[in-house]
């Protein structure tokens, strides 16, 4: 079972991204479950979206305690509190202008920094980064495939469908290229 956590600030679209990611897994025939913190959630406060996906029906109804993947909408949120929910195998994607190396101090984690804002801007999406970050995340997880992810985004985005899809694909491509670069270098 995949257990994925998306951390953002209220209003950034972490919950929407969680739903879209669940839909993409569901479209690929997986059982899914997703829920987001609510109630006390206000614009700007940290919001967590949890996604489970599995070949088997998902029965457990509790918090994710060790994620297979983490997506962080804002590098200021990526701290030890959040990293407690990860281990060294967890795929961690963080939206940041900072170079990859600047996260080395956080510990022995597999952190991938993506400049989601840059990609969003380049695709006429302003500060709306969720589609770009989803592209980066599915690239890093290598699941679900980018076409399915883009199809879900196109279907569910309330506006700027093509721009959202383009941002998703560009981020996917950047991460895929970088990983291939790492592999060839390594």
């Amino acid at each position: 079972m995949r257990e994925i956590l998306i951390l953002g600030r209220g209003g950034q679209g972490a919950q929407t991204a969680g739903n879209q990611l669940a839909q993409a897994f569901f479209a690929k025939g997986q059982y899914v479950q997703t829920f987001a913190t609510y109630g006390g959630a206000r614009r700007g406060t940290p919001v967590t979206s949890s996604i489970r996906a599995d070949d088997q029906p998902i029965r457990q109804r509790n918090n994710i305690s060790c994620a297979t993947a983490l997506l962080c909408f804002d590098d200021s949120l990526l701290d030890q509190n959040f990293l407690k929910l990860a281990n060294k195998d967890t795929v961690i994607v963080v939206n940041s202008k900072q170079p990859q190396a600047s996260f080395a101090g956080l510990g022995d984690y597999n952190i991938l920094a993506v400049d989601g804002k840059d990609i969003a801007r380049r695709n006429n999406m302003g500060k709306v980064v969720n589609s770009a970050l989803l592209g980066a995340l599915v690239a890093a997880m290598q699941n679900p495939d980018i076409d399915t992810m883009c199809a879900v985004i196109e279907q569910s985005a309330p506006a700027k469908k093509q721009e959202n899809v383009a941002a998703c694909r560009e981020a996917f491509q950047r991460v895929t290229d970088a990983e291939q670069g790492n592999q060839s270098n390594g």
Partner: protein
Amino acid sequence: MNALSSNKDLQLLNGNHAVAMGVKLANPHFAPLYPITPQTPILEKLIALQSAGELETELLTPESEHSAMASAIAASATGVRVFTATSSQGLLLMHELLHFAAGARTPIVMFNVNRTPASPWGFWPDQIDSLSQRDTGWVQLYSENPQESLDTVIQAFRIAEAAQMPVMVNHDAFYVSHAVEPVEVPAQETVDTFLPAYKAGLHLDPELGRSLGAPIDQKSWNESRQQMAAAMATVGDLTASAGQDWGDLTGRSYGPLEQYRTDGADVVFVTMGSMCGTVREAVDGLRARGIAAGLLKIRLFRPLPQVELRKALADVPCAIVLDRNYSPGVGGVVHQELKAALFDMANAPRLHGLLAGVGGVNVSAEMIERLAVEYRDAVASPDPVWVEE
């Protein structure tokens, strides 16, 4: 990979939207609704369905939950099918009228999203809101997941209308109300077969010249409670047959209780609501480790199926109640209820009452496995024990 390819008509719905879809299929005449977190998505979805022309129900948004229940009672007394939904503070505001609805024998179906009552303020899963209404005369059912919530709300109308008792269906805030999962929405014809249009017996009608619930003498009031007792005595069987018939139509059967891998179990967890799912994971994990664990899920809490509970726990060495609720000064409500149900039973299990998940704190499968190991051979205390991760 395509695990779901054989399933038809699955939709991704959160628990509350699943409830709304169930209500739509049950097609009540009238639904007074007042919004409250985390129930509001039920209200929103019903209004959206009505706006889209997919729901014929007359919706009313009165000024409080008290008025919502008052109008539900009045409408139900006129002989029509009535639905309402609420949570926590809203349910507690209705308290006075919950007694009234049951006493007036109005077969209202209400969905309650279990949430911590203030104070302090919170929005988290905890069942004390509805458990504290256990003496009002409402039938109470607890649902584990969005699919069961949809299925149960439909069955609830059949139970309510057959027993002429109001039915409250509950699911946990957050883990069910706001969790999106694949849900099969049955066809309208399936539901129509299962739940024909409501034909009321005695009801309010200006042409009939009778009124409801006027003052009476002591003996008649006493008699009214005996009549409610007789009605409650039918609810267990009605729940079983409704769950069975539903299973015949949809492949998903339900009963007052559910036993999961309890055969030959040394330790059986007893709980209600969303935690049952996590316990299933733990039971599988324990069994894989060679520990004979099982789950006894209580779906029908009022009337409490005492005979079935005694049967299910006879000769089980150890039972552990996981209560996601706390009655101050006593402990977990399910623990207390179970102690009473098993009273004077020769082959009763050692019964542990663990306060797990009160206020919505996380209870993981790993924690449950650890509790099994810790308590299965321990001497049972009559007092509750607070446990945490």
